[in-house]
């Protein structure tokens, strides 16, 4: 798969990574190179194969539905780049 500049810009927007215009062209070439390489998997016959999501047991363990942790607001907010009145603070999202 050859990606063009527009496709890279779209993926970068999905991934929330700001790219400069001059980064798009070289990234398009690099990512296309990697994608072309991984496309060798197309030659493997996987018609009757179930996808493997994990090597671990697929049933999740159950436990009692009770609170095991919490009340750590200040500890957690201590790492926030910006916090106010016990909340994470971000740029305004609602006008």
């Amino acid at each position: 798969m050859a990606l063009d500049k527009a496709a890279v810009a779209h993926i970068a927007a999905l991934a929330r990574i700001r790219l400069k215009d001059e980064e798009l062209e070289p990234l398009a070439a690099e990512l296309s190179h990697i994608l072309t390489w991984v496309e060798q998997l197309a030659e493997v016959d996987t018609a009757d194969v179930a996808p493997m999501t994990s090597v671990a047991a697929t049933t999740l363990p159950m436990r009692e539905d009770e609170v095991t942790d919490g009340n750590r607001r200040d500890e957690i907010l201590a790492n926030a780049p910006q916090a106010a009145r016990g909340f994470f603070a971000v740029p305004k999202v609602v006008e």
Partner: protein
Amino acid sequence: MTELTDFTLAEAREGLAARQFSARELAEAYVAAMEAARPLNAYITETPDIALDMAAASDQRLAQGETRPLDGIPIAVKDLFCTKGVLTTAASHILDGFHPPYESTVTEKLWQAGAVMLGKTNLDEFAMGSSTTTSYYRPAENPWRRPGDNRPLVPGGSSGGSAAVVAAHAALGATGTDTGGSIRQPASFCGIVGLKPTYGRCSRWGVVAYASSLDHPGPIARNVRDAAILLGAMAGHDPRDSTSAPIAVPDFKAAMTGDIRGLKIGIPREYRAEGMPSEIEALWQQGAAWLREAGAEPVEVSLPMTKYALATYYIIAPAEASSNLARYDGVKYGLRVAGDTLDDMYEMTRAEGFGTEVKRRVLIGTYVLSAGYYDAYYLKAQKVRALIAQDFAAAFEKVDCLLTPTAPSAAFAIGEKQDDPIAMYLNDVFTVPVNLAGLPAISVPAGLSADGLPLGLQIIGRAFDEEMVLRVGDVLETAAQFTHRPSFIAGGG
């Protein structure tokens, strides 16, 4: 007199128990070695005060006869494990200033066992790499150099800092994580032992996630016995990791009986890759000969899907990474770059906070998971992954373990293999399939390359049969008698 930092972990335990030296003396020797090793740039954060405090507590227990399994043993921690109140960076700019309010399960178990924390070691950013050159904190160096050549070499990666400090005697052992080879390949490059346990054996809780279905915490040590002792302390069921296996932890060092008579050792013919350097091929044959002399029987086996493992990995790992790394958004911790809107802030924070290789993998991962491409890439890779795991299962019906080279080369110079990402990815050709199948594997130093650098051999076992891997690895180590030392040893010696 032998330097304190020359003792192996097993020897240091005996010395501490016999009160030949105190935990404080041992910690002080390692703190000095850690400072002497600064030119390697292998530690991101040194924690000498914590080390001396923990050593004092160990001395107290030793005096009262309440000794724990790792009391007084100085350990380095890959800076991917969260350590309570101690800067944890994943070698990324985006985690600037992050001090976790909790401790990872694996490190918690080590401290509970009495181990002493020396500091946090350098790695490829978010463990994405095979050279420890993608670190925001600059590359770490290998303590080995080619004789007559002063160029600094990579320690391998991503656990390159951990491998470098263990090899340079600036830690007695270390934690690593292995997603595609990141414990075993640096161990091979630095002439030491690295053990990737079975998926589920060591908890991932509190380890900064790269690719959750492939990430394996494990030990890095100077020899096989030390790796077994460390694994015993790190392993065990953890309800906080839903993929942690509820399986009892055996006495791993008891598995090293020295007796491998009658075992069948698989030699996978597909690992004889095109263009494999002849010295690697020769070492591999030597390894098989050593095991035969010890009474085992090498048997050729086939793992036909081997050639597709790297491509499978470079779909699944970036896909999982793109999802795991979505949490770095400038809101909860780490770096924030101001923006006019929330989206601006996200995008600019991630643009500045992530390095080139991390961006590359997040973008690839985002693409293979995106609408219209999911089936062709991600689902396809999961199916091929199933076939790769089946290959191993079929082989293990005929043999007890597998013997392969660890890596297709010895350590390379810092700056080499930077131009083509795929050339760098090929470092992991012999290790990646094992992660896809979740099996235990060890790298043992077995010889030197023509230019005087260490080369490792890998033993792969059945799921949860670390004991077999250790048993055969121990015999291999004894036969190889790898006594070469790197050009730089921090602790004098």
